Structure formats: structure tokens, C-alpha cells
């Protein structure tokens, strides 16, 4: 009987974790180049339930759920025209490379600016890498040659925040750089809102299951009460 309590509670914890991810997606619904997270619920290992008076098995029962896998949906989002010469977007596959203190990071957020030394920098001041791996120099008129900006293929892409990804460099990618455009956020607002509502209702259902089991246990305990 007690087992049911933990099954319901584990479900609620999984929903809570998913709810946090969905909130983060919604907070980034307008972040250029943002890629949303997807999660998969998996049951814990199933238990073989046995008849307590004998050794006869009565079947299996799941011991709860948890968020098993998280994957970032790396599909490209539509590009948006901004007409700013330093807004760049990768049209197709690949990532911009930026040189950070922690090493090379990759990004699809191309809202870049000019650094004091005449190189292209990202919004945090990190230098953007060119095709040859060196910083990209701006033209004298303050614009940038899209062909000079590197687009890198990356394996094992992981989000690390600040619009950056880590991963293993795998050479040049096929994507082309377009100036004057930004890639939108890949968050589908309607889908995320619906998932959030469904998730909240499932959370509520978990709570109802929990309180129902608690009620039942209370009644069982009440059987032995001496009046």
C-alpha cells in the first residue's frame, strides 16, 4: 500500500522538473537562436509483486516515473530580417564560434557588435571566430564580410547558458552566414503553453492520487481504533 504513495510522489517530482524546463523555454521565447529542451518520462524499474500468503506472482507494478532523458531540440528556427549589419544568422547547419575565457564556445545567437580593436564580438564581448579560426576583422565602414565568419560543425552539442553550446568541433559546416538577419527562438509558444497546462493537470492528478491513498491508509488505521 505504501508503495503507491511513492509512485505518486515520484510522478509529481518529475512533473515539477519538467515544469521548470518549460518555464525556462517560455522565458526564452524571444531569445535569438534559443533551442528548447525536450524531456522523456521513463518508469523506474518495474517490481514483481507477489502474493503475500504464498509465492505466487501476481504481476508487475511500476515503481514510479522520473525524467529519464533530456534532449535539446537543435532544429533551426526561421530567420528574421533586422537590417542591422552586425546581426548575423546561420542559414542552414552549423554554429558561430566564440572565444571565451573557458575556451571555444558555439552559438546560433548572432546579435554581434564591434569591439574597440575593430573585431567582431558577441554581446558579452567575446571575439567571434572567422573561417580560419582567428578573430573576424570588420571592414572600414563598420560592416562585416559574411563569408569571413566561421560556421562550424559541432558534435555532442550541450547547452551551457549565455546562448552558448559546448561540443566537439567537426570541421566546417554547410550553413551560410547571412548579415542583417537573426535566427528566431525555436520555442513554439502555443505548444509550450499547452504542455505546461497538461503538465500542471498531471501534477494535480498525482496530488489527488497521493491524498486518496492517504485517505485509504487513514481509514485502514481507523479500523483498529478503540472507542
Amino acid at each position, binding site marked *: 500500500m505504501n508503495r503507491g504513495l511513492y509512485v505518486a510522489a515520484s510522478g509529481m*517530482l*518529475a*512533473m*515539477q*522538473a519538467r*515544469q*521548470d*524546463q*518549460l*518555464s*525556462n523555454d*517560455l*522565458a*526564452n*521565447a*524571444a*531569445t*535569438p537562436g*534559443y533551442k528548447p*529542451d525536450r*524531456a522523456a518520462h521513463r518508469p523506474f524499474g518495474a517490481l514483481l509483486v507477489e502474493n503475500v500468503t504464498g509465492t505466487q506472482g501476481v504481476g508487475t507494478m511500476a515503481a514510479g516515473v*522520473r*525524467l*529519464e*532523458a*533530456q534532449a535539446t531540440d537543435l532544429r533551426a528556427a526561421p530567420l528574421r530580417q533586422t*537590417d*542591422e*549589419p*552586425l546581426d548575423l544568422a546561420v542559414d542552414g547547419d552549423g554554429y558561430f564560434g566564440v572565444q571565451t575565457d573557458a575556451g571555444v564556445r558555439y552559438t546560433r*545567437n548572432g*546579435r*554581434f*557588435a*564591434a*569591439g*574597440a*580593436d*575593430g573585431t567582431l564580438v558577441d*554581446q*558579452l564581448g567575446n571575439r567571434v571566430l572567422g573561417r580560419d579560426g582567428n578573430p573576424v576583422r*570588420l571592414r*572600414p*565602414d*563598420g560592416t562585416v564580410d559574411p563569408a569571413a565568419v566561421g560556421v562550424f560543425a559541432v558534435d555532442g552539442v550541450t*547547452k*551551457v*547558458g*549565455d*546562448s552558448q553550446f559546448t561540443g566537439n568541433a567537426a570541421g566546417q559546416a554547410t550553413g551560410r552566414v547571412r548579415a542583417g538577419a537573426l535566427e528566431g527562438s525555436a520555442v513554439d*509558444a502555443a505548444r*509550450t*503553453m499547452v504542455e*505546461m*497546462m497538461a503538465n*500542471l493537470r498531471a*501534477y494535480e492528478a498525482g*496530488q489527488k492520487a497521493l*491524498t486518496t491513498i*492517504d485517505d485509504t491508509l487513514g481509514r485502514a488505521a481507523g479500523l483498529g481504533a478503540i472507542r
Partner: protein
Amino acid sequence: MYSAAAGMAAQQQRLDALSNDVANVNTTGYKRVRVAFRDLLYTPERLATQGITEGAGSAATIVGRGHAQGSLQRTEEPLDVAIHGPGFLRMRRADGTEILTRDGNLRVDAQGRLGSERGDLVQPEIRLPEGASPADLKIAPDGRVTLAGRELGRLQIVTVASPDGLRALGDNGFEATAASGAVRAAPATTTLEQGALEGSNVDMGDAMAEMMEAQRAYEMASRAIQAQDRAAEIANAIKR
């Protein structure tokens, strides 16, 4: 819940920047504000399920100004100059500060010196001979100022490596800083046009569309907070 709140704060910053843009839609030489967004740190989920991370929302940074050319407005005033391409006019304030400006709405002061409406003087100084009418001034695309064929001086067009690093002093004036790099001559492709002014580069339609997007994003983040609040309420109701 806090990640959604961070998202709301970021959108609020963007709305503030957009309001500023819209308010300056008629300001000569105004450049729209560029706001950049990024997602924040990802931390392992606290229930320690392997490989599940939680993001901390989003943040906004102002990366500088948009440098798209503002629309040119023909005024036919001899003392109006518009700058085509990147670059600034060099002027000096009354207190001696050197400033850069794109506002080409020039004036001739009581001493015959060429300067701005606010009394900033063109650097190096250009002085009209006594009795000369400003209406006879000719300003060439390269900045040379002539009066009836006689050269009086040259309007210097300058730029910096990173115009976003300039410090805004108000009244359309900017000052070079370490972040902007030193003042140098603008590329030869930058030219002046007499008898026109550069309008603001804020596009009302774009600004309105962006404002709606910001408002929607703000609303969605607030819905996420409501959902988190409701979840907390449900959790609290377990113990009756």
C-alpha cells in the same frame, strides 16, 4: 518560478528600450537601441536525476545602437548636412569636451563660427568672413566648405572602431572612450550631403511589431509564473 521572472525582467528592459526608440522617431540622427538576449546558466536538476538540467531564464543586454542609415529628409537649408555612411562630425562643447555627432543641423553663431544649434563648434574651427551670408556656403561631399569659390575649411568626418563603445552625452553628442577606440578619419565612402538631414533610423512599423512581441513574451513568462504558483498550491494541498 525565478527563471520565468528573469524572462519578464529581460522583456521589460526591451520594452523600455523600444519606448525610447518610439519617443525619438523624429529626432535627427537618432539611432535605435540594439538589445541582445541570451539564456542563463544551466544547473543540474536538484532532484539529481542524471543529465537533467534546469535553466535560469533569460537576460537582456544593450549591445549598442543600430547603425542603419536613417531616412534622409530634404530641407534645402544650406546649413543642414546629412552624413551618408558611418561616421560623425567632430565638434567641441563650450566646456572644451570634444564630441562626435551625427546631427548635421548647423548654425553660424554671432562671431561667424560654424557650429551646432546648441553652441557646439565645428572642430577645427570654420569662420565665415564678416558680412558673408550663410546661404552662399557650399559644403562638398568630402566636407570642404567654400564661399564663392574660396575654401574656408573642412568639416572633419571621423569614426571610431566600436561606435557602440561611445558614451552618449545627451543632445545627440557622443564622447570617445577606451571601449570605443581612438577617433580616426572615416572611410572615404562616407560623404556629406548639403540641404538634407538624417532622420531617426527607428522604423515605426518594426518598433510596434517588436513591442507586441516583447509584450507577448512578457505575458507568457507571467503565465509560467502562474503555473508554478498553482503547482506550489497543489503541493501544499497534500497535507490537509
